[in-house]
């Protein structure tokens, strides 16, 4: 905490500095799209499976997206086996919201026969090594996996050839934690452990806000929120450049 008031962090980063991002796509051949992402020492894998299915009655021409996240015991000693925990459910829903609300995937182009058959896209994310900020790591992995995904039109006999996932933009989430009166971007495990509140802000390519989620048992001020919004736009731009 004393370090922070001098604008420094235990790992030497600036308060608004994101850890090194490494993305590898196409790592799982049995998946229609995949990405393994490292954010510092936090590591996650996202895989996309795509199968034909029936549309929802209120959206007969739209493909369906489903996002799941698993905090498996392999990734950290605090993760327990069993059905998804509250934390895993919140994580999946925040990642889902960023992708869904930004309109990243053009679901109209995932229609096979209107009212009868559409493509169902399953985004499954697994934590592999947890060192804080799973929100942004999972967002990145899901987005990169989707961008690399191939819709198996030919494989299922629904078209002449397999086509790339119809992607319109790159939603990027930026998560900050509040420690004392400071807000730090991309918290690691130790920073998360002593923080009182968390805010995730997802922006689209033009810097509009598409999703937000405050978490944690503490509060944030309107000034904190304003700083997070500014940083989310700025850092979102930087990250889009990195992942291309």
């Amino acid at each position, binding site marked *: 905490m004393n370090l922070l008031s001098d604008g420094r962090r235990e790992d030497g980063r600036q308060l608004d500095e994101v850890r090194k991002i490494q993305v590898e796509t196409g790592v799982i051949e049995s998946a229609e799209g995949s990405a393994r992402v490292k954010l510092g020492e936090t590591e996650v894998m996202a895989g996309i499976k795509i199968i034909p299915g029936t549309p929802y009655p209120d959206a007969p021409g739209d493909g369906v997206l489903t996002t799941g996240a698993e905090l498996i015991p392999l990734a950290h000693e605090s993760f327990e086996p069993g059905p998804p925990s*509250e934390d895993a459910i919140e994580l999946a*829903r925040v990642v889902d919201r960023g992708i869904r*609300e930004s309109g990243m995937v053009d679901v109209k182009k995932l229609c096979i026969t209107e009212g009868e058959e559409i493509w169902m896209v399953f985004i499954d994310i697994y934590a592999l090594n947890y060192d804080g900020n799973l929100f942004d790591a999972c967002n990145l992995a899901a987005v990169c996996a989707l961008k690399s995904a191939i819709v198996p039109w030919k494989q299922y006999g629904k078209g002449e050839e397999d086509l790339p996932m119809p992607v319109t933009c790159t939603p990027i989430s930026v998560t900050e934690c509040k420690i004392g009166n400071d807000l730090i971007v991309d918290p690691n495990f130790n920073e998360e452990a002593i923080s009182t509140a968390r805010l995730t802000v997802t922006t689209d390519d033009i810097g509009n*806000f*598409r999703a937000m989620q405050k978490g944690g048992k503490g509060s944030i001020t309107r000034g904190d*929120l304003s700083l997070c919004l500014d940083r989310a736009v700025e850092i979102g731009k930087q990250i889009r450049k990195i992942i291309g």
Partner: protein
Amino acid sequence: MSGHTDMVLVNEEGIRIDGRKVDEKRNIKIEAGVLKNASGSCYLEIGKNKVLCAVYGPRECRPRHLQNPTKAIIQCKYNMQAYSVTDRKRPGTDRRSVEISKLISEALEAVVQTELYPRASIDIYIEILQANAGTRCAGLTAASVALADAGIPMRDLVPAIACGKADGNVLLDLNKEEDNYGQADVPIAIVPSTDEIVLLQMDGNMTREELDHGLDMAFKAAHEVYDVQRAALKKRYSDISKKEGDSVE
């Protein structure tokens, strides 16, 4: 946020389908102390939303491995009843209700003096009897009144309200149609005495200007909801003292 409609949600005069202006919240009614068995309770209506909330505790925390030796834990269960929505809601917890329960618990942890009750659990049950958009805000608003009704020490109440966007207009307190067919929904809850934010979510599409404008409206409206919360608690306690006065005679 995903549906499409030809319905005009906000007309040229800036009037919404339920007759409200863009910065007008729905009618809100709050009553404290409505359930006999609970330590504290609250019934709340905002527009067509009807919410019932009960607080049990502080009481022994079960399962025991969840106990915290330094403070009470808050366990909220938000539940939509089967008949609360147009298409019957299958009873039981789903992923949405798990997330909402977690966020409401966290928002209330920021105000409840949990350190007074080590190892205990404060259990909050929010039942949505009828849903018409904004139920997490309605549930949280009711929960903080029920906590106060239970006599649990708190720094302040927690009023919650949403702002959002529909037909390109920034709106306060979206109704079901505006939520379904609009462009953004931003539920927010604050601590009125300090204006801290304890719950905040957003989905949709808003520019910075729209978001700031929406938040200004939501903060102002949250203070108005706060007045209704306090009035409900005052009425509850004046009713109790009146009753006690009667029995003395």
